């Protein structure tokens, strides 16, 4: 695979797959000196779907994001906005 995947698009893709209102999924990318922060927001009634029971879904998304970022040699942090 020659291209560098976009971490923002990865998070958008995962979130849209999970929620009932995919058109309300928004990911903002804030770039700082120590890497990027991705801020994910979803429709209020979809929040539980991206967080999951005891935060399990949010943890899975972060784990997958870390692996993808590692492969792309990037530093990315995910924040889920409530």
């Amino acid at each position: 695979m020659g291209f560098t995947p976009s971490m923002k698009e990865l998070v958008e893709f995962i979130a849209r797959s999970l929620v009932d209102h995919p058109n309300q999924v928004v990911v903002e990318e804030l770039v700082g000196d120590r890497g990027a922060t991705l801020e994910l927001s979803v429709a209020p009634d979809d929040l539980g779907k991206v967080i999951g029971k005891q935060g399990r879904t949010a943890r899975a998304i972060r784990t997958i994001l870390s692996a993808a970022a590692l492969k792309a040699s990037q530093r990315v942090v995910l924040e889920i906005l409530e």
Partner: protein
Amino acid sequence: MASSKTFQGVTREDALSRAAAELGRPSSELEVLEVVSKRSSADAAPCIQLLIRVPEAGPGLDEAALLQGFRRPSAKVVEAASPRSASTPESPHRLEPAAATSSREPSREPRQTDGLSSKVLARKAEAFLADLLRHMGIGARLETELDDDDNVYIEIFAEGGVGGLLIGRQGQTLDAVQYLVNRVVLPGAAARGRVYLDTEGYRARYRRKLEEMAHKYRDEALRAGKPVTLEEFSPRDRWIIHQALLDDPRVTTRSVGDEPDRKLMIIPRR
């Protein structure tokens, strides 16, 4: 040879009464080695799996006990059965390995149809997984197999030697991807099957590692002549450890306590 069998039900009681009926034993005589919840998502109906030690066949199988097992209302079954995880004086001889039972394969439970065939589930899972891997920058080929219980097994052949990255530390990335795939493709209603992922033979390797560890701790218990307690294992891991030691006449295994502090004991037989 000792033997164990898996039973499913909507609740623990339900699974236990199925086991009692199928094995022709009152549920109070059955030893539940491990309980795993198969609930696929927060709003899905729960499905409980029990790993049950198949008791010795023969003299113990009297008709009264058999009928009791059938008739007992399921709500009471759990009261009768849950204290059984602790040992009771009359239990050991019931738990002796029985060659007769291991060869007898009880008939399969009737299939609960839920509208989502495993083939549809497999196609949805493959499509989502392929998209997800592409977004992660991982090129991969997928090979899918189905089993009789509607489970879907997808083997990921990743390009460019990124299998290790996909597995992650202690398998956590592979587990995260597997969890996410199930969240996305399983419908809200209870699905019988689940999607399982593997790459580079990781699951089998992990299982072998657990089995080796089970044997190591068994040896330690035998050497010390007293029980060894294993902590911090997931229900699935304990399931594998129970099975690894089930055939060993020198020890017996038992899980005690409640999640998340449930522990597995390896106990030397006298």
